[in-house]
């Protein structure tokens, strides 16, 4: 993994203050590149597996089994993607994954912001205060603990399908989202609300016209976390959805794993297609995603 000698760690902590007066940092000048190089090397641990997935996917089956697999593909072979697409029924899995993620993101945004607003707004009332802790406590109940009865329950309610998966994704994401939203809502001055109330706005109008627009930055953070959790989840859809043709992308990868046993290039084309959507979104919206994620950490 990452190796950094104590000196560079110390240098890192020392150099960490951008606004420090120049007089104090004189000795440190020119060190930036040394540390940058170390970090770049460390970054290879992240990039090499991804590079590996890319080059394997573009090889022919003969190239894929030769050597260590790190070599560049020649000639470029696109047909693995076509094979993987049809073999895994990728189009259908993509639609299922997209719908499940969209429903769970929307569900989390709505239910969590509603609940948080009601809780913060009525904090003086015991019922709402207790509900807050009730919702938060669920964060510490891991899925495996309730999985057995929960799967029975979803089946009994006719929810052994992507709809049930989306519902559970919403639920398991609620605690964390309510936590973020209520911390944010507490920082909104009451005066804003009071003023709107003077003008005769009802709580319902107040939420949609004043509170929801104010929550915009938090919506981004909550939405990103909800999307990643839902899109990448394997555990819940694999246990909840009964019909294997309605599985999400991560589960489809697992189902077709045995079919790939001899065609590594097709397997990697399939993995790459599975990882591509989030990676592409991340690369293009990196700044936005990172600021959302850090806001989650800081709030």
């Amino acid at each position, binding site marked *: 993994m990452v190796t950094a000698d104590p000196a560079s760690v110390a240098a890192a902590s020392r150099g960490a203050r951008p606004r420090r007066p120049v007089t104090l940092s004189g000795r440190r000048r020119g060190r930036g590149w040394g540390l940058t190089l170390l970090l770049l090397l460390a970054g290879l641990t992240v*990039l090499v597996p991804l590079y590996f997935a890319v080059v394997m996917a573009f090889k022919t089956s003969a190239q894929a089994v030769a050597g260590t697999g790190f070599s560049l593909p020649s000639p470029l072979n696109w047909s693995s993607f076509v094979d993987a697409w049809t073999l895994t029924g990728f189009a259908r899995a993509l639609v299922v994954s997209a719908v499940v993620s969209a429903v769970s993101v929307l569900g989390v945004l709505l239910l969590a912001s509603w609940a948080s607003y009601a809780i913060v707004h009525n904090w*003086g009332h015991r019922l709402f205060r207790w509900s807050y802790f009730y919702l938060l406590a669920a964060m510490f109940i891991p899925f495996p603990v309730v999985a057995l009865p929960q799967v029975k329950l979803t089946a009994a309610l006719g929810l052994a399908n992507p709809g049930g998966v989306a519902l559970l994704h919403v639920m398991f994401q609620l605690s964390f989202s309510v936590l973020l939203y209520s911390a944010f809502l507490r920082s909104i001055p009451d005066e804003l609300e009071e003023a709107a109330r003077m003008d005769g706005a009802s709580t319902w109008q107040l939420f949609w016209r004043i509170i929801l627009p104010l929550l915009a930055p938090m919506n981004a953070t909550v939405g990103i976390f909800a999307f990643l959790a839902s899109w990448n989840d394997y555990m819940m859809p694999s246990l909840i959805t009964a019909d294997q043709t309605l599985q999400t992308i991560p589960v489809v990868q697992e189902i077709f794993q045995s079919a790939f046993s001899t065609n590594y290039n097709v397997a990697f084309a399939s993995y790459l297609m599975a990882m591509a959507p989030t990676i592409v979104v991340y690369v293009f919206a990196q700044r936005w995603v990172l600021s959302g994620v850090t806001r989650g950490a800081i709030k």
Partner: protein
Amino acid sequence: MATTSTGASRARADLGTARTRGERRRAPRRRVDRVSYLFLLPAVLLFTVFITLPALAGAVISLTNYVGFGDWRFVGLANYAVLFTDPNVLTSYGFTLGFSVVTVVLVNAVALVLALGLNARIKLKTALRGVFFLPMVVSGIVIAFVFNYLFSTSLPALATTLRLTGLQTSLLADPDLAWIAVVLVTAWQAVPSALIIYLAGLLAIPEDVYEAAALDGATAWRQFWAITLPLVAGYVVINTVLGFKNFLNAYDIIVGLTDGGPGTSTRSVAMTIFSGFTGGDYAYQMANAVVFFVLTVVISVLQLQIIRRRGVSL
């Protein structure tokens, strides 16, 4: 999620002020309007129906001999009695706990070092941050499949080419070493969330503390031990608590990497519990789930106790 506890700590800090503020501003207490109840209802209902009720039902089922279908009767604590002598269950607890401890330590060490590096005066800062956060967005099971091939085929081939003895066989095929692969891949994916928290923590340290120390002649090395480390200690605790909670539930990555093997050497508790779906062990594995829940709670409470005793403010 990774960032939860930072949020929790702030929220807890906010609660005090929110309460006083609410009481001050809202006395006499404002009537709760119907819309507030409507807003709260869906979330609370969802929790009650899909977590509280199943959890209670599960606790009751664990006292029966239910196999997943058909008749059942109460058998008292019989399931629990068997549980504590079942080698399969004990092995999975041993693996899960050991794996969690090692992964927590590794993730924290790597994330802290990276956070210090990324917070320092470096070139390409945005790009580097972008790279290190990347593992967070990929699916655990899919990246585990990629690593599966790397460990089982590429690395042995590489070792053979370089004539490195000892590394020429697959790490995943060795019952004594396969857990190392699970630790590495889990850490690979878990580092970004710990990193976020450390970066946020480092940004919160005021600049003048370092300036004062530098004026007093403290070396960089001393500044790190006397200032940086004590001030990020609270974040170490947060990352440890959160990490433990996630790693104890390890499932996706193990399925993609070893599927619990070779043998049962990397079978996590979650995998053992899920075997209750098919093996006719429904009630028995439900008892396992209850024990697992108690264990999770005990570990969390113990960690919180240690925090309180050490006086680390969250």
